[in-house]
């Protein structure tokens, strides 16, 4: 009833030796998408937070254009609640690759009264307004993000090239079908496109790739000692913007971060993964999703990401 068990088996045996690994296939796909966007858009930029996914994106961009420079600037939406070592990492990376850095500042919008601090102190959801402002002011027509479809069910339904209207909004019911490897990036004045070249990568793929390519990350992704207190079932770091309440006891623990975002909403996990290979093993054995484990903003409701995306978030 089937031919694959008979004649075609020989073709397969011959092909197996040259078959690309899943990481090589994902890398090739991402580089193809990055090059398509650079070729078809006037002014792309890459959203760079110093988080592992954006670091992998930048690494892929360096490979896509080697031996030339990465031909677009990086954009950081600074919540003002950053981990200092991440900002240091960001600046060193930009310097090393000779890139232009554009910063959109949440603090400036709060200072000018255009944004109000939230009651829970979390600034991640406040990034949307400075992000859209930076996109418009700089006339970026394509913005690369490190979003992955395995992160969340709203992301699972988003296209690799995601068209946004002049308010940056995502309309899940009105998405273009994405066929073969032919990407349609056409847009009208005022619209822009968010491009997600690593849509098909999982968290474990990211870590295996970081290990294979020997990519440097901010140190807080690896186990270190830190003063923390327990809140919302997570370990929160003690810092300028993240202070324990009187009943919250401060203790020193060996922790690492699985995601790196706003210091006011990102939690650490207890871990003794000191090296990248330790982390690969830890992630492979993990029983919690990365956002469920470490992001207060995604716990607000089941549809938190969906709501933020419709408002123009990544």
């Amino acid at each position: 009833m089937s031919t694959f068990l008979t004649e075609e088996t020989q073709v397969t045996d011959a092909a197996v030796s040259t078959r690309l690994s899943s990481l090589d296939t994902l890398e090739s796909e991402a580089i193809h998408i990055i090059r398509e966007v650079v070729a078809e858009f006037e002014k792309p930029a890459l959203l760079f937070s110093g988080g592992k996914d954006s670091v992998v994106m930048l690494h892929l961009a360096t490979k896509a254009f080697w031996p030339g420079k990465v031909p677009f600037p990086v954009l950081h939406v600074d919540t003002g609640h950053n981990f200092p070592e991440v900002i240091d990492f960001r600046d060193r990376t930009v310097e090393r690759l000779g890139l232009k850095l554009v910063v959109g500042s949440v603090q400036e919008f709060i200072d000018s009264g255009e944004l109000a601090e939230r009651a829970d102190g979390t600034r991640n959801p406040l990034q949307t307004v400075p992000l859209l402002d930076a996109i418009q002011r700089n006339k970026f027509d394509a913005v690369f993000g490190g979003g992955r479809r395995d992160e969340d069910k709203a992301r699972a339904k988003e296209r690799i090239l995601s068209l946004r209207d002049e308010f940056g909004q995502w309309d899940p019911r009105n998405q273009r079908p994405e066929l073969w490897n032919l990407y349609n990036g056409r847009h009208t004045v005022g619209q822009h496109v968010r491009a997600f070249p690593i849509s098909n990568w999982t968290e474990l793929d990211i870590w295996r790739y970081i290990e294979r390519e020997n990519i440097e990350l901010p140190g807080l992704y690896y186990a270190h000692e830190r003063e923390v207190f327990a809140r919302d079932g997570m370990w929160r770091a003690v810092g300028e913007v993240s202070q324990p309440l009187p009943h919250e006891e401060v203790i020193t623990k060996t922790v690492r971060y699985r995601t790196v975002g706003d210091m006011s909403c990102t939690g650490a996990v207890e871990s003794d993964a000191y090296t990248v290979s330790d982390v690969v093993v830890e992630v492979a054995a993990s029983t919690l999703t990365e956002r469920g484990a470490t992001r207060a903003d995604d716990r607000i409701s089941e549809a938190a990401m969906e709501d933020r995306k419709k408002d123009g978030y990544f």
Partner: protein
Amino acid sequence: MSTDTLAADLETALPTTLFRFATAGSVDDGKSTLVGRLLHDSKAILADTLDAVARTSADRGFGGEKGGIDLALLTDGLRAEREQGITIDVAYRYFATDRRSFILADCPGHVQYTKNTVTGASTADAVVVLIDARKGVLEQTRRHLSVLQLLRVAHVIVAVNKIDLVEFSESVFREIEADVQQVGRELGLGSDGISDLLVIPVSALDGDNVVDRSERTPWYTGPALLEVLETLPAADELESHLESFRFPVQLVIRPQGALAPDAVAAGLDVEAYRDYRAYAGQITEGSVKVGDQVSVLTPGQDPRTTTVAGIDFAGSSLEEAAAPQSVALRLADEFDVARGDTIAAAGTVREASADLYAALCWLSPKPLREGAKVLVKHGTRTVQAVVRNVSGKLDLSTFKLEGASSLELNDIGHAQLRLAAALPLENYLHHRRTGAFLVIDPLDGNTLAAGLVKDHPGDHEDERYSI
């Protein structure tokens, strides 16, 4: 599993390969449950997600007093979908076994099945079509199978689901299997040397023959669904050895003075790279070696032949490369080569043509009319085009072409287009990449149709593929 044994496993494991598949089915055939079962039994679902699903299952009283987890909830959609009672096209899901990483395009079946199936199948190595064992082959099954044949999906797997509800009856299964094979023969699916057609009895609800072979179907001696997915050759494995080299140029890498500072810091010879010039792209078909004779195809010009001087990738020089690798090619002669040109194995490409005969899968609510001005995106080139005529519309249940002068959403029809520039078009039947194109609306930029290049009338196209 302890992390020590896991570390040892990771050390010794061979690199996994990637396999893309899609699911298609009719309403209520249990597709969400099957997808949930695959994700659950392959341990792709983490504890916090499973807890949430278990809570919702209990809230909704799933399984009555016995309780249980409603696996369909694992693929529950967005709030926008629940609120409006709709399903928004394709969702992508990920899981892995020791042998393979899987990308699953979960395509809803009921509304806009053509649009969703075409989208999911265009990148799939295999498609799993669900049939309810109590209902057998429905008209929608025929439609799904005919779309998959048209898109030349390498492996079609028909899962006869809810086999538990027909008491694991062999005769029911054999009857459905015979019907499926009959439809396959009518379509040329599974007997044409391009695709294969497998039929498996499953119960997604209980897990029979999904991940492990079931003891409740002793009369079925074939593999479980996941075993099949783990062992089928991916389309690139089958094709890159059989097809000739094709490489649409994405852009020219010519840094002149602007070399990457990190590469220079790592010891790149600045003098040697001053005049570096390479053509970046992804190999869409076949493979290439240094020294191979290639033709550069530029619209409006005769093919120019040269040899491959080098294959570069991010600082490494490769001796050979194959689809789907992204690389940069250096050529022996200094031709003027630009985005939109195609580099191909010399002597394997027929003449470029501005007359395009095609099957169009119409994906837009805006209908196609004769005389319409559109854009055609083929490889890395986008050209203007006019629709000369629509010559017919396919009846997917009878596989016959009916007369039609326009195409509506979810129609598949034949049309002739005149292009503003001649393109190196190839029959989709033999070239799943260079035979594919998009039809784009020049006004709002939306994708209107998936296009499949056909031979010109009078060329000897195989009659079996006449749809």
